Each structure stands twice: as structure tokens, then as C-alpha cells.
């Protein structure tokens, strides 16, 4: 597939892990590694969908407030007596609906993805505030929180979800006609159209899946906190896009892999975990996060350059 040519940013991830192992005794414990995975789940699952969207050349800024709104609606229903599993369904349906709205606007109304999803960001966040009146919903039954808070044996359910979603995402991108078409539409929409690819439908599906992934991320978050909070997912969109782009997917579309996204998500997870384990002063945390991300992409760039010198 289109993206395979690029070695992803794996060296930076390995270096980060080695450094953390040397700096902190706690890093390499199986428990801590499980924690990193668990904490990366929300960003990770949302990033699976975002990878598809970004490969089409689009962007989804609404993912964070989609997480808030879908989680809030489901939690309020469940709080009002609806069965937990129905809440799960509602959450996914609401989130996919938001994705469908984005997809429809981008594909058929031909609006710029940035603006549509920014507007939807505001609308979904506003609706969340209005529905919740700023209040969290808590005390949710395990039917709704199991996906985010449960465990199977010693392993948290979100870790399985995370793994499963990446695997499915990877297979969709690399082995299905939809994935093939997503690369084509993102790489050259006109050429894709000419060869019979239903470009609008492909765009629509990408945003729809992106929305559904946000819904799953919402369930994980609600489960983890045991509550639906109106500020959930604030700023999540930037983290998600950052993970995808760090993983080598181009915002111009047509290029990228799910494996790259996975590495991007884990890199961010390891950096955040590491800074807390080392108890870096909170006044420095943001600076160091930024600097490490810059270092990682620089390393990656030099590594790429070394591999393919002849690319002007």
C-alpha cells in the first residue's frame, strides 16, 4: 500500500524507552507498561479513525467534543435507567452520527473539513454543556463502564480494545478495497474518480469510521473515570492529530500507515508517562514535552534522509 515505503518513527520510540528504563526503575514493570497502554487507549482509538480521515486529505477537529457529547448522552440515559449495553450502543450511534454529519458536509456539500469539524467541535461541546448544565454524571453501572474500567485476567479491557482496533484499522487500510480507495482519494482525488472510485462515498465512510472510533474512545474514557464529564476530550483533537502526523501520515493525504500511528501514540504515551514518573516540575512539563517531540521528529527526519538521500 501507499504508505509502506516509509520507515516509521520507531527509532525515537525505542530510544525513549531505553532512556526511561535507565532513568526510572519503575518504567519497565509490566504494570507500568500496562498503564501506558491503558492511558494511550483514548488517544489511540481516536487516532485509528483519524488516520483514515487524514489519509483522505481531511482532518477531524470534532473528535474531542464528540467524545464528550456521545459519552454524556449515553451516561445520562443509563443514569436515567436505560440498560448499560443500550448505553454503549447509543454512544456509538451518536458518535458515528456526528462522523456521518462531518462526512456528509465534506463529501457532498464540499465544505472544507477544517471548518466543518471546527464548527461541529463548537456545536458538540455546546450541546454537552447544555445537556449536562456543566455537571458530571457519575455512579454509572458496569454495563457501561466495563469497556473502559474492566479487566480480563490481569489485563484491562481497554488494552484489548486498543490492540483490536489497531489490528482492524491496519487490516482495513492495507487489505481492503476501502483502504485502497482511501489512499487513492487522498493521493489524487481526480484520478481516483476517473478510475471508478466513488470518492464521495469513500470520504463519507472515513469520517463515519472516525466518528465511531471517537464513540469507542468515549466509552473507554467514561469507563476509566467512572463518570461522564463535560470537559472530557478537551484538546484531544490536537493530541490525536499529533500522534497520527508524528507517525508519518501526511496532512496532505495519500500517505500514512496504521503502524506509524501506533508508534506515534505510544511515543506520546511514553513521554507523558516518563515525565510523571520522573516527577518533572509541572512548570517544565509542557516545555519538555514539546522539545522531546521535536527531537523525535528531527531524529526521524535525519534517519529518513540517510535512507533515501536522493529526494529533493
Amino acid at each position: 500500500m501507499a504508505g509502506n515505503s516509509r520507515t516509521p518513527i520507531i527509532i525515537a520510540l525505542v530510544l525513549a524507552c531505553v532512556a526511561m528504563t535507565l532513568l526510572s526503575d519503575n518504567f519497565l514493570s509490566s504494570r507500568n507498561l500496562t498503564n501506558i497502554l491503558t492511558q494511550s487507549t483514548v488517544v489511540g482509538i481516536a487516532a485509528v479513525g483519524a488516520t483514515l480521515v487524514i489519509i483522505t486529505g481531511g482532518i477531524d477537529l470534532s473528535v474531542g467534543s464528540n467524545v464528550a457529547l456521545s459519552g454524556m448522552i449515553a451516561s445520562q440515559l443509563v443514569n436515567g435507567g436505560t440498560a448499560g449495553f443500550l448505553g454503549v450502543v447509543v454512544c456509538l450511534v451518536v458518535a458515528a452520527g456526528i462522523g456521518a454529519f462531518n462526512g456528509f458536509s465534506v463529501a457532498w456539500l464540499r465544505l472544507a473539513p477544517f471548518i466543518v469539524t471546527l464548527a461541529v467541535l463548537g456545536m458538540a461541546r455546546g450541546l454537552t454543556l447544555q445537556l449536562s448544565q456543566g455537571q458530571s454524571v457519575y455512579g454509572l453501572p458496569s454495563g457501561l463502564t466495563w469497556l473502559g474500567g474492566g479487566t480480563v485476567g490481569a489485563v484491562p479491557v481497554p488494552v484489548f480494545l486498543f490492540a483490536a482496533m489497531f489490528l482492524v484499522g491496519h487490516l482495513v487500510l492495507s487489505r481492503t478495497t476501502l483502504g485502497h480507495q482511501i489512499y487513492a482519494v487522498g493521493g489524487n482525488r481526480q484520478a481516483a474518480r476517473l478510475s471508478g472510485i466513488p470518492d464521495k462515498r469513500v470520504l463519507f465512510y472515513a469520517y463515519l469510521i472516525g466518528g465511531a472510533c471517537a464513540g469507542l474512545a468515549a466509552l473507554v474514557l467514561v469507563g476509566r473515570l467512572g463518570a461522564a464529564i463535560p470537559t472530557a476530550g478537551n484538546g484531544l483533537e490536537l493530541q490525536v492529530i499529533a500522534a497520527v502526523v508524528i507517525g508519518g501520515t501526511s496532512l496532505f493525504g495519500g500517505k500514512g500507515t496504521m503502524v506509524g500511528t501506533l508508534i506515534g501514540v505510544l511515543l506520546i504515551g511514553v513521554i507523558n508517562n516518563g515525565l510523571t514518573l520522573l516527577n518533572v516540575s509541572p512548570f517544565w512539563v509542557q516545555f519538555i514535552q514539546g522539545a522531546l517531540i521535536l527531537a523525535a521528529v528531527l531524529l526521524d527526519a535525519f534517519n529518513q534522509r540517510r535512507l533515501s538521500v536522493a529526494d529533493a
Partner: protein
Amino acid sequence: GESSGGASGVTIGYSTYTLSNPFFAGMQKGLQTGTRKHGYKLVTTNSNGDAAQQVTDIQNMISRGVNYVLLSPADGKAITPAVAAADSAKVPVISIADSVVPPITATITIDDVKAGSDAVDRIAADLTARKGSATGTIVDIQGILGTPSAARRELGFRQQLAHYPGLRVAAAQDGGYDTAKSNSLMVDILQANPQIDAVFAANDAEAVGVSAAIKAQGRFKPVGDPGHIIVIGVDGSKPAIADVRAGVQDASISQNPIKMMEKAVDTVADLEAHKSVQKQIDWPSAIITLDSIDSPEVKNYGIWSDEV
């Protein structure tokens, strides 16, 4: 929110910098009760954490012709131009929940510094009860760095900590007044620190996330158990009160936004009646614990989150 009223011809403008915190929902409630009582019209704006937007909001309100400006400042210093605009339009200004630097008509606050120091005292007392002396490791989950309330709670926390040489801060991080972020931080902190005795969270949204992390990491013992990790938050919000009742969170240092806001509207009424008003009104805070939650004092103070 727009309350119908308006019979008196008085319009109050209220500018808040957030709505996404249950505390501010309490303030809305008190504001509505108060304006309804006095028959005032109400205009509310929310600047979403942005100090510049808040100045804008207040200027817009004044353009619109409000008679009084009530505000909860995003930044007590950076609000100055809005206060100046109000002054030049001869509109009285009342600040609630946080003070502002330029002189205004009245200020109604709880003492954020005291909230921080009360938390330390409470932790010290519990540890003394448990171990015989105030020794142990504490985690400090701060509020959004750069916001005044977070800074003052942190200040009170640190000042009071100096009085207890046996207490050590094992980790201090910015929880962003956010449940999810504090939850992630606490998971990692628990990983790095096998022994933690207590957590001070700068607000209850953070405290709730912290408690969830302690449970998820299998480190939870109920309040009263010798292995329990003490968790104290500030605000008295609903999930935190529920946690206090359930023996999960030890204490919430509660304000009462509803009554503070009613008091603010009463102050407006006093101004309308040309009575003199107090410049600084200190609203007491209450420490809500499992023991005190059903006590007459707390009943009298009011658990605001039960009312919104």
C-alpha cells in the same frame, strides 16, 4: 441565562470564565434565584478561560447597557481594563469567587489560600491519628498553572506544609482542574511511588480522577483503613460529595456558590436602595467529611451540589 423579571428595570451582567465546572453551575443557580427574588434582568457571558475574551464580554455588556457587572475573573490583574470601562460608564462592579486587583464596589470570596492550608492541616491531623506523628508523603495535584485560584491554593498548601517537617511532597503535577488528566497523572505517580499517604487535589474534579486512579491501580482501601490514601479536594461538587459519603474521598473543602451568588445579588439590591455595602465579604468555607456531612453545621452551611 435570561430571567424574565426585569420589572424593576435593573439589568445585571454576569461574566464568568467557565461553565464546564460544576461550581459555576452552582453560581448560575444562585444568580437565578437572586435575580428572580429581586425582579432583576440577567445577562450572562462565558469567556471559556480566556482573559481577553472576558474583557471583551464585559465591554459588550456595558455597550448593551447593563446597570451592574458581576464577574468571576479569569485573571484578577488582567481584568483592569474591563473595570475601567465599567467605571467610566458608572457601572458598579462586584467580583465573586475570586478577587481583582483594581478597586471595585465589592468582593465576595472564600479564601483560596486558606483552602490549601486547611487541607494540609487536615492531612496532618489524620496522619497523626494514624501514626502518632504528622509524617508521610503527599501528592500535590495542582490546578491549571497560571490561573489565580490554582496559584493561591498552591500557596496556602506550601506555606502550611512548612509547619510540618515530617510531611514530604513526593510528586507535584498540573492536573489542569481536569478529571481525566488527573486520573492519568495519578496512575503514573502511583507507579513511581510505592508509598503514598495523602493527595491534595486543587479541586474536586481532580480529586475524583485521583480516587478512580487509586482504585484502578488496586491501591484502594476505604477511609478509616490504615492503608487508605487520604484524598482531599476543594469545591464540594457532586461526585466528590458522593465519594465522601462512600468513604472514598476524605474531605472536600466546600464553598457555597449558590449562597455567595445570592449574597451578590442582595448586595446589588442594597446598592439600589442606596445602602452602604461592605467592600470585602469573606465567605466561609466548610470542610465536608464523612463525619461532618450530616452535622447541623454542614446542613446549615448547605451542600450546594445537592441543590443544582
